[in-house]
């Protein structure tokens, strides 16, 4: 391929379909309350679809409850067992009180990630505003639970038992910063994984057109990465949920 041709073509393909275009938040119904833009966006629409889809699924799945579960019912039961076991293993039976919250989180993130895999769709979990909102709510909830259960003893968590007292001024700020960085690390992990995957797919798909006949190679790669992306979409929902469980475990059974 002629070398001068590549930049020109490259520009045209990526100008036509910019890889970042898929993350653009567009307002569908412009609403403004008190000078604050609260428009109904495509992100909000996808979130509503995710909630509706999950709601409908569980409504249908539990509509005809039977001892021998049907197809839908067994999927719902599998998901229930999955999250229930996750909480029992990581938090213990005391954590089952918070099952509805964790289950909702898992389903919301999972359906959001999966909806993002549909062509022409929008991945709301690829926006740090969304994941940060989820993570901050988790962080505040967990901190409140911790203080409600242990009172001021909850601060004791930042200083490990048996460490020399002299190291306290060094250890406590470090553990405190590590604790405060949790919501950020939680949100950045989900957001970065979703964003990176989708950009990579778009860029590689651009190469398919660029390379002409040789485009079969990137096409095969895109095919493989699409499968990988489905895996990552599920895995990140799992990681998000299990980290919530671990944080909850800290708050409930202080070590």
């Amino acid at each position, binding site marked *: 391929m002629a070398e001068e041709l590549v930049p020109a073509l490259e520009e045209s393909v990526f100008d036509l379909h910019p890889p970042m275009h898929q993350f653009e938040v567009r307002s569908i119904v412009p609403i403004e309350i008190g000078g604050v833009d609260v428009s109904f966006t495509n992100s909000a629409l996808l979130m509503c679809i995710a909630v509706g889809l999950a709601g409908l699924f569980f409504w249908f799945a539990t509509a005809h409850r039977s001892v021998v579960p049907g197809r839908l019912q067994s999927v719902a039961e599998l998901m229930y067992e999955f999250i229930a076991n996750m909480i029992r293993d990581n938090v213990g039976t005391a954590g089952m009180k918070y099952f509805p919250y964790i289950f909702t989180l898992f389903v919301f993130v999972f359906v959001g990630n999966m909806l993002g895999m549909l062509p022409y769709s929008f991945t709301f979990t690829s926006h740090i505003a969304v994941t940060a909102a989820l993570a901050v709510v988790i962080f505040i909830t967990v901190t409140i639970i911790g203080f409600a259960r242990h009172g001021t003893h909850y601060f004791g968590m930042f200083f490990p038992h048996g460490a020399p007292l002299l190291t306290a001024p060094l250890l406590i700020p470090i553990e405190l910063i590590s604790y405060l*960085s949790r919501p950020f*690390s939680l949100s950045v992990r989900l957001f970065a994984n979703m964003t990176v995957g989708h950009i990579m797919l778009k860029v590689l798909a651009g190469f398919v057109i660029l390379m002409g006949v040789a485009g079969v190679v990137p096409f095969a790669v895109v095919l493989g990465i699409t499968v990988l992306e489905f895996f990552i979409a599920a895995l990140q929902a799992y990681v998000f949920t299990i980290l919530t469980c671990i944080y909850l475990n800290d708050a409930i059974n202080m070590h």
Partner: protein
Amino acid sequence: MRISVELVVTVAVGTALGYGIDSWLGTMPIFLIVFLLFGGAAGVMNAYRVVKGLDESVGLGGAVARKENAEGKKDRG
């Protein structure tokens, strides 16, 4: 990926915390500098946890003990 996130995020949080304390007490830039370093230390600690495959609950010492405990059980079992 995980490690880079931890390193960046903890330094950012440490700096923000230091800046907050400084603007509250009016002691710019003492706490900013101190907490920037603490943030870096926390980042390295978290990176160490990721590399060592320790759990993510609060307290590095506890995490190390739990991992050794779990491995000890595995060896016996």
